[in-house]
């Protein structure tokens, strides 16, 4: 026996085969002819006669060939590399990464076997649930009618602005009103939505108190303005205290006031956009109402309106007629369908379960604790040496930044080595080196303290040894990515190792 082979430690090459941080791509696991399952072949089956010869490939597609266990291990290992709210704290500002209770999954599963083509009589249960959810969302937002159709927040925004456009056109003011006003701290989807609906965007600045500059806002208003898009609290986590004045001035010139519901978690159960003067609201059920998100969907973006915009709602809504629940027929003036059938029903069920489980008192506690948690973390970050943009009592989120000379990106990368997710960084654009933190109500005091301790330690390291953070992260499956090369020279296709051309 040689000295080498008696070593108790595996060679690097041998250990790599099983380590999850070096595991191969599914194509690299491929072995010709290996299969997870073999479909039965009946003698005499001829694909060309079954499908038509013109539909057959000349060459089989280059698919990975793996056994079932290879496949299971591949995806299990990938899953272990994911960061999720079920794994650890994830305080992404303006994303409301709150915990999604597992009970809602159980409720949603009960409806899995329904089909949208089923007869109304056989789906009274789900129609009743959807009708109740419409009513609940109307109550919570202070709107007269809600449509559950849109499939995401931005989709709901588009529905909202298209309704406003339809309203102005019906009043003969479609050509006159060419402009949508957004504050400079707006979520990027707001100006994008306005542009997609054909409007010019005019930006109004944030004042020194972190609220919309009302004078600049007043100066931008006029009979050419179709809508004003705001979120309240705004993206700095600050409540727009002059919202009623803003609404009054917008309405004086005939503009419609649009509420971006991304920040509803700060006020749910306590204040209603409808009472503040908003005419249209979209809600991100995947934020405030705990339907899962973060994996690219599906989201859910119901849209609610005051009665003067109701004729334009995306159809169909679910209506109650006596004891029966029915799918409404076409609305003559509707902007049309935003999605097939009834929207992302699985998520609508989860949101319904959340609202019904908590009730109004529970929802009030949600926004109360969300605001308390964010204020606690703001003070802890200030104590640790971070600067707070617009340092005043905030709502569900706040914006901080490291002291001059230290980059937010370095802080964020260093946090990954502690097993926590950084906050939203470099947004909103109105704060240099912005760190936007939204802990939500679902994190405990202990978690908030641990998160604050990580932030304090990283800042201390950055101040003591500025070069140290340049190496971070050191403990993640992949280290610091070359974002510049990824943006300038993206590689979007897998290159087969044996494909010389």
């Amino acid at each position: 026996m040689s000295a080498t082979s008696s070593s108790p430690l595996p060679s690097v090459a041998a250990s790599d085969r099983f380590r999850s941080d070096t595991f191969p791509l599914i194509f690299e696991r491929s072995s010709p002819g290996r299969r997870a399952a073999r479909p039965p072949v009946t003698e005499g089956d001829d694909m060309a006669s079954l499908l038509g010869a013109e539909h057959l490939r000349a060459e089989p597609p280059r698919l990975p060939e793996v056994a079932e266990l290879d496949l299971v291990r591949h995806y299990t290992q990938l899953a272990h590399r994911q960061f999720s709210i079920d794994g650890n704290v994830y305080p992404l500002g303006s994303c409301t990464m709150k915990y999604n209770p597992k009970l809602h999954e159980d409720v949603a599963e009960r409806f899995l076997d329904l089909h949208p083509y089923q007869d109304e009589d056989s789906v009274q249960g789900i129609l009743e649930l959807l009708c109740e959810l419409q009513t609940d969302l109307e109550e919570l937002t202070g709107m007269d009618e809600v449509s559950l159709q849109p499939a995401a927040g931005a989709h709901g925004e588009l529905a909202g602005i298209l309704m406003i456009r339809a309203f102005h056109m019906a009043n003969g003011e479609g050509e006159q009103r060419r402009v949508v006003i957004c504050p400079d701290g707006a979520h990027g989807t707001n100006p994008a939505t306005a542009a997609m609906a054909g409007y010019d965007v005019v930006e109004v600045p944030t004042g020194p108190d972190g609220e919309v500059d009302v004078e600049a806002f007043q100066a931008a208003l006029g009979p050419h303005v179709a809508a004003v898009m705001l979120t309240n609290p705004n993206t700095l986590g600050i409540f727009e205290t002059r919202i009623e004045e803003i609404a009054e001035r917008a309405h004086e010139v005939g503009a419609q006031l649009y509420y971006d519901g991304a920040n509803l978690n700060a006020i749910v159960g306590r204040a209603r956009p409808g009472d503040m003067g908003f005419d249209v609201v979209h809600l991100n059920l995947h934020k405030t109402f705990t339907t899962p998100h973060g994996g690219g969907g599906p989201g859910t973006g119901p849209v609610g309106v005051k009665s003067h915009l109701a004729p334009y709602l995306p159809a169909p809504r679910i209506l109650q007629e006596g004891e029966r629940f029915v799918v409404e027929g076409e609305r003559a003036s509707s902007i049309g369908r935003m999605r097939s059938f009834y929207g992302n029903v699985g998520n609508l069920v989860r949101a319904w379960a959340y609202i019904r489980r908590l009730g109004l008192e529970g929802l009030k506690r949600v926004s109360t604790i969300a605001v308390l948690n964010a204020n606690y973390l703001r003070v802890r970050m200030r104590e640790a040496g971070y600067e707070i943009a617009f340092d005043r009592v905030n709502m569900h989120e706040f914006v901080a930044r490291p002291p001059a000379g230290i980059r937010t990106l370095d802080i964020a990368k260093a946090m990954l080595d502690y097993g926590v997710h950084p906050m939203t960084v470099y947004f909103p654009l109105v704060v240099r080196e912005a760190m936007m933190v939204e802990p939500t109500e679902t994190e405990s005091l202990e978690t908030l303290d641990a998160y604050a301790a990580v932030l304090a330690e990283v800042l201390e390291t950055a101040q003591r040894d500025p070069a140290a953070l340049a190496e971070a992260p050191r403990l993640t499956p992949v280290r610091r990515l070359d974002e510049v090369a990824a943006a300038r020279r993206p590689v979007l296709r897998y290159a087969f190792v044996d494909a010389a051309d």
Partner: protein
Amino acid sequence: MDTPDTLHYTRSHEWVTKPENGIVTVGITDFAQDQLGDVVFVELPSVGARFDAGSPAAVIESVKTASDIYAPLAGEITAVNDALDAEPEAINSSPYENGWLFKIRVADPAGWEELLDAGAYEAVAQED
């Protein structure tokens, strides 16, 4: 920060050369490129396009954010720096030379009074 005395500046961090035959060259400042971080994409205006002073004329996208670049003076675009398509990083490495963005034939010289000299611009950048 590097702020050459020979140039004029805007509060929105563009630099402007003195006019030659009525044409000025425009780019972004060293301070601006440092704030943006690594530039990955530049969207330039079309030659012949006309802009009012202060209206968005180009977009610079960095790893952090996408920023509008404003026309410092009213006028017509006479040339754009096409080399930035292949090499946007020139804005980081050479903001005042290879990283120039576009040239404008100035329609209204009145806008000159609004521009800042190097000292005034540095003061603005520091309070930002």
